[in-house]
């Protein structure tokens, strides 16, 4: 059975074999290698180049994938590109025609790129692969559709034999929202919405208006929402977005500028919402809290309606999600809480990086690869641990080279020691195994802390992550204990669902909470695990099993046995603006630049107090652009 994803040539002689997928040229470039329908390696280029959201050709990620698989380019069946550049160019041209004479500044900047190479991006991919291939012949390079790649990334690695599939993002070529029916290895497209009517663009417009960066600040807006009330939601529905019962919608483009301008919103947007946009890094006011709450409410409404529509149309009760809007874990949580679907699976790399994986999966299954994991009732993502790992020897060599004092401990002793330190309030940089694929740290490139301490959120935000104080942290919890700590019926292995902290752990706020608004709400502990409890009592949960991550599960178990609490703060191992650390050197630098107390590199434990003085040229903070 082949894969029909609305596009994508599935190879010349029907040759099966490993397939490399590539996403590139817009944001979050990545490479992924799939063999017989199984993801073998995947990584975002930003982790190698150290440029956040790197959009360039992912040469280093490609090289890693080939190295991990022990393959050369000429041994691949095909290279799959995650979108159709020619179709995307036609959409860009159509937009210029539809919006002229507005938009000349964008035309002036973008037209030479499009005329020069972007519409022939596949030729650029071939040229760059030729460099990597060292003169050996290249496999065919084929384009898949952007939303087809998202749909493939959502359904094909899911544990479901069949499912409804919903993909919602900013825009691919034309589609911004697509509905599919996945069965076996096939994906049948059912319906779509097209640019410029985009839920992702709506959310990004408010992200921009609230002073955050587009394509990186959306999750900050989501984190801000619980501080506000959705008082602007009726105005948004009346003036910005017309939503039908089935969740389909159109935007009123008179208030937006993204379709022709260099900014997301226009003057009329300011008039609607009481003044100019918030200056980046400026003070947050009640207006931003309420705008965040309002657009979040509207977004959830649309996602829920679209989910009901695709489930109805397919007759399925299982739902798969991908596209950037699928990273909105609050909306995802509602899909589960309100039983919109019986089962939900969200691609951990739901954004454009996941398109590399999706296109590779679509090509692989299109060539006949089966979905063998479905028989086992598991997903095919290997816990999303698809990036590079470092052996004990490599770590030891790094430590010796730098002269960094460390002790090597067997696992039982290591987890006991780290659990003890965490229970005493220490912050631990935890670097293990293979790096995660996707935006979340899942226990291999993580900063860990005790969630019971009310001061942890502030300490981590201001002294370790150097990020905005309103941002909550997320918990990792032993899967077997999750239901005692969170109102979560099933699994959440990829930290893409929010759930309320369980009633038994919640604490009633006393008179000190009366009348508090905005960031003042942070001062009031709301549960026994305040560091991971948002101001509305919710948490973005990761459930951890021994099957997916044995060592992280062992650490959580040791912490639980010591404290009675099976939960840890799990935040990504980086500072604000920096990609998540990839190798021991980056982990050590982050450790030494911040207030992290202990660093664990595989089996090696490093104490900050034992380390030599950290010296580097220049101010490292100046070198990392704010996100």
């Amino acid at each position: 059975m082949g894969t029909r994803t609305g596009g994508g040539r599935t190879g010349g002689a029907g040759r099966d074999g490993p397939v490399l997928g590539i996403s590139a040229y817009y944001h979050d470039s990545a490479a992924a290698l799939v063999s017989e329908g199984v993801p073998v390696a995947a990584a975002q280029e930003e982790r190698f180049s150290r440029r956040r959201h790197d959009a360039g050709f992912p040469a280093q990620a490609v090289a890693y994938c080939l190295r991990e698989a022990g393959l050369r380019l000429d041994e691949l069946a095909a290279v799959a590109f995650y979108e159709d550049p020619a179709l995307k160019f036609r959409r860009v041209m159509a937009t210029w025609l539809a919006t002229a004479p507005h938009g000349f500044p964008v035309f002036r900047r973008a037209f030479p790129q499009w005329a020069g190479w972007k519409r022939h991006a596949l030729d650029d991919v071939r040229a760059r692969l030729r460099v990597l291939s060292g003169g050996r012949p290249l496999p065919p390079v084929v384009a898949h559709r952007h939303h087809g790649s998202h749909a493939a990334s959502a359904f094909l690695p899911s544990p479901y034999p069949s499912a409804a599939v919903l993909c919602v993002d900013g825009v691919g070529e034309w589609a911004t929202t697509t509905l599919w029916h996945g069965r076996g290895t096939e994906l049948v497209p059912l319906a779509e919405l097209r640019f410029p009517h985009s839920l992702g663009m709506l959310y990004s417009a408010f992200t921009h208006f609230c002073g955050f960066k587009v394509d990186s600040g959306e999750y900050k807006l989501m984190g801000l929402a619980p501080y506000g009330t959705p008082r602007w939601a009726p105005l948004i529905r009346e003036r910005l977005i017309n939503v039908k019962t089935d969740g389909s919608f159109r935007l009123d483009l008179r208030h937006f500028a993204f379709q022709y301008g260099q900014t997301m919103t226009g003057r009329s947007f300011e008039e609607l919402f009481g003044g100019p946009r918030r200056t980046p890094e400026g003070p947050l006011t009640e207006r931003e809290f309420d705008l965040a709450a309002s657009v979040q409410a509207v977004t959830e409404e649309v996602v829920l309606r679209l989910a009901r529509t695709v489930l109805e149309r397919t007759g399925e009760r299982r739902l798969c999600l991908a596209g950037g809007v699928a990273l909105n874990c609050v909306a995802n949580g509602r899909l589960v809480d309100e039983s919109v679907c019986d089962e939900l699976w969200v691609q951990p790399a739901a954004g454009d990086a996941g398109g590399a994986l999706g296109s590779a999966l679509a090509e692989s299954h299109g060539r006949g690869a089966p979905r063998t994991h479905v028989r086992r009732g598991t997903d095919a993502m290997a816990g999303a641990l698809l990036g590079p790992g470092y052996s004990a020897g490599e770590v030891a060599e790094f430590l010796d080279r730098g002269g960094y004092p460390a002790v090597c401990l067997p696992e039982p002793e290591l987890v006991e020691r780290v659990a003890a330190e965490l229970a005493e309030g220490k912050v631990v940089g935890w670097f293990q195994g293979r790096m995660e694929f996707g935006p979340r740290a899942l226990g291999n490139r993580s900063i860990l802390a005790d969630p019971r301490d009310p001061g942890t959120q502030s300490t981590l935000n201001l002294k370790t992550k150097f990020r905005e104080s309103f941002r909550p942290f997320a918990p990792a919890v032993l899967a077997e204990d999750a239901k005692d700590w969170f109102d979560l019926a099933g699994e959440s292995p990829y930290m893409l669902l929010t759930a309320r902290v369980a009633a038994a752990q919640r604490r009633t706020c006393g008179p000190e909470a009366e009348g508090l608004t905005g960031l003042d709400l942070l001062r009031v502990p709301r549960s026994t695990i305040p560091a991971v409890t948002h101001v509305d009592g919710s948490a973005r949960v990761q459930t951890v099993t021994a099957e997916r991550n044995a060592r992280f599960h062992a650490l959580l178990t040791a912490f639980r046995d010591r404290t009675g609490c099976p939960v840890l703060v799990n935040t990504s191992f980086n500072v604000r603006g920096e990609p998540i650390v990839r190798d021991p050197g980056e982990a050590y630098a982050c450790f030494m630049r911040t207030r992290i107390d202990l660093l664990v590199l595989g089996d090696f434990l490093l104490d900050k107090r034992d380390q030599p003085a950290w010296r580097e040229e220049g101010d490292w903070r100046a070198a990392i652009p704010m996100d």
Partner: protein
Amino acid sequence: MPRSRWTERLGGLGLAALYFGVLTPFGWCVRAVRDPLRRSWDADRASYLEAPDRSRAAP
């Protein structure tokens, strides 16, 4: 990422002439017939969902 050589030769003035002299009037003609961006809200429609584009991606 390489820019197109012929657009480099056009320069800013040439691009402006292309945009305002060719693209803009052509865009007006297109919009006189239909709106490629389907901007209007339609209270009479039950759904804005459209049939999927089933054409194949370019090789």
